[in-house]
């Protein structure tokens, strides 16, 4: 088991290394540079060259990458050109908690809404309930999150005035205020996941309900809810957890749009701003952090299998 984990870790590190090199190269290939942005419209070639040199942007790209990597693994993520802020602090201590909170809340909403929807759809297969649930699921999945966000803002923020439409209040500083500020963004981002979870729940449960052990449970005279929620759902959890892990990328992608629309200072907002300003090392930090997150979640998913499926524990 320990061996398996360390092999996975080694694999992971390799993947991250490739990701970092590729993203570094792509960013450098993109036209435009931070120096002309920092200097605004009005600057001389001399001040341009001076700043380029100060930032080390006149050096060969391989050298720049090597330097960045060496510093990065030692925990020195550099300082933002424009804000002069320590990037580790910005990315890990400020932006990451925002995105994680948003993602966790969205996932919670998605589970609470998605699983019962999927179960209902499976139990009343081909009825109007199924059609309604499936339509909602596909709709939620297909609706672009920035558009849904704006619709929710106008409906619940402006017309009804129930929720704040922008800004972030940290739930660890003021729990209820924080939660209240996060409702609309979390619903926006969660809608996408609701569809996914409902669909997987429905199809997996349908498959499971046809299994002999379900028939056996029914034959034993177990109550209907127990058959579905204990015997059935337990076997649905495996594919569900797998999909949730795999689709984390989609969630982080959605988080970028959601954060921009709701003005939340998370990773998505950080990376968007940095890309527009061509702040290579900030973007790089965002990408690495996202990569790490993705890998960590998938490792965790792998580890949960043995809790979900007793047969895997013996290995």
């Amino acid at each position, binding site marked *: 088991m320990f061996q398996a984990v360390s092999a996975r870790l080694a694999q992971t590190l390799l993947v991250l290394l490739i990701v970092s090199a590729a993203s570094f190269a792509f960013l450098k290939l*993109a*036209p*435009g*540079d*931070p120096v*002309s*942005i*920092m*200097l*605004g*419209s*009005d*600057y*001389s070639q001399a*001040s341009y060259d*001076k*700043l380029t040199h100060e930032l080390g942007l006149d050096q060969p790209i391989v050298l720049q990458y090597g330097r960045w990597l060496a510093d990065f693994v030692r925990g020195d993520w550099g300082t933002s050109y*424009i*804000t*002069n*802020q320590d990037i580790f602090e*910005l990315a890990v201590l*400020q*932006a990451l908690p925002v995105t994680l909170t948003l993602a966790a809340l969205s996932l919670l909403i998605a589970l609470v809404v998605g699983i019962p929807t999927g179960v209902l759809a499976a139990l009343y297969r081909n009825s109007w309930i199924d059609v309604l649930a499936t339509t909602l699921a596909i709709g939620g999945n297909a609706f672009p999150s920035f558009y849904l966000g*704006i619709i929710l*803002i*106008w409906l619940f*923020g*402006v017309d009804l*005035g129930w929720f*704040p*439409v*922008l*800004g*972030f209040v940290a739930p660890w500083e003021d729990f209820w205020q924080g939660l209240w500020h996060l409702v609309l963004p979390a619903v926006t981002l969660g809608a996408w996941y609701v569809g996914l979870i409902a669909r997987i729940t429905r199809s997996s449960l349908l498959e499971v309900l046809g299994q002999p052990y379900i028939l056996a449970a029914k034959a034993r005279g177990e109550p209907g809810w127990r058959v579905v929620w204990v015997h059935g759902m337990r076997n649905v959890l495996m594919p569900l957890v797998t999909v949730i892990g795999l689709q984390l990328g989609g969630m982080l992608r959605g988080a970028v749009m959601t954060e*921009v*629309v*709701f*003005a939340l*200072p998370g990773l998505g*907002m*950080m990376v*968007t*701003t940095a890309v*527009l*300003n*061509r702040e290579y090392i900030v973007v790089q930090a965002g990408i690495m952090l996202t990569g790490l997150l993705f890998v960590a979640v998938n490792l965790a998913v792998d580890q949960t299998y043995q809790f979900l499926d007793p047969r895997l524990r013996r290995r």
Partner: protein
Amino acid sequence: MSEQSHKDKLAEALAARMNRRGFMKLMGSGAGLAAGSTLMGSALVQNAMAAAPKRGGTIKLAWVDAVDTLDPHFTSSLGSVKILNNVFNGLLKVAYDGKKVSFVPDLAEKWEMPDDKTHVFKLRKGVKFHNGDPCDAEAVKWSLERVKNPANGSPHAWKFDQLAGVDVIDDHTVRMRFNKPYAFLPVALTGSTGRAGTIVSKRAVEQYGKAFGRNPVGTGPFKFAGWRENESITLERNPDYFEPGLPYLDGVQILLIKEPTAAVAAMMAGQVDGMSLSPFQFIPQLKANPNLKVYGEVEGNYSYVGMNNRRAPFDDPMLRKAVAFAIDRSAIIKQGYFGEAIPAYTPISPPMTDFYDKNIARSGRGQYFDLKKAMEYRKKSKVQGEVNPVYIVAQGFTGSGGSGTRNSQLLLPMLEKIGIKPKIELLDRAVWTKRRNSGDFDMYDEAWIADLDPDETLYPEWHSGQSWDFVGYNSPEFDKLVSDAEDTLNQAVRKKLYYKAEDILMADAPLAVLAHMKVFKILHKRVQGFQYIPVDLLNLHSVWLS
């Protein structure tokens, strides 16, 4: 000219007058509250209310324009300047009495000109920086020299090109000596971005170094309290501010918003007290909301299409002129600016009243829509048949005056009528800036904003070799006229020089000028005491919440 009159002449030359209609309109929106009930009584009540401002509270503002740095000597963004004006003071400041923009002493108590090249500023006594250091003559000298010193690389150093030296006469008297008369000085000290006359704390600059822009220390009504990246900037009341009793607010919370739609929604929902700016497309909606006040007049600005003089096809003045006369400005204003602009015939804009030609529409001067004329020029141009110039367009919301991609979309069918079919390249801001600055385009459009004087509207943009002459316009005749105007204090002479310069510029048509635009601030009705100044400022020292 008597010695004393130098200063008067200068002040007069630079005073930009707003028209009376603008003033009336402004008053109208202020009196809107009273209109429903009976006349005098409620107006008096309102006055009484205005006379007794309420102290305390934090104002929450949605900031949709970019904030690059809070170091006044290095900023290039009006989004920053609007904040900086609440944290710092200059020697002079811009004032507005509802009719006329003028320059009045701020940190200076008195401003004198012993001769036409020397300016003496007597400073207020007892003014302290937020860190407790005294703001005296030494501090002022150090600050001015920080801008001037090429080693510091301030992008605004050019404003002090002609500054020969700064002398400390006593603790509260500073003298600036110039190589020649410098008509632009008051604007250089107060205007636009990087207000060169803004006084910063020497100790704080030395203490924070490059991070000073994230830890600004000034003398203004509000102290900088914090900056959360991509989230908010907070200011708090400066209890030692030199204007007695001000400011009223305890604090200011500035929410940094990328997506203007979100800010408009928050404004409509009453969740914020104001917006630093609004894109044109939201104005009708905001104006219709009874809880909001929309401030905005035509400011000192102009939008235009620039054409690259350095390479074909626009190295041909006839083709450029054809473009200049083929553009239907009224359509641009209706659809590009939602009616919140007026057509521009030349770059000099209405708030520069002493220079703006009020009869320009009937004078035949400048550029305007005349398709017949455009066709004639097109026939005389070197290249006949279809031309396909590269038109670079910046993506996204571009701040005050920015119309996004709308102008380019509107221009295409107009240009097609004279056989020009541009290839539009939609670029993100970073790429667009780089291509514009390096002259890698045939056409581009943008706006110069928050100008107070014809000098800054014409000189750095179109004088050959200047930093914003991206199209490579080069006319020795124009250059001489705008340089002479800069060194002239006589207003009538200056006006003549600028008219001549503009006539040459418009005839050579390195640009096709489009419109003078309104620039907006939106405030909730509960925000009181705001003094509108038509140079894209949002000063909060007199503001209070009811």
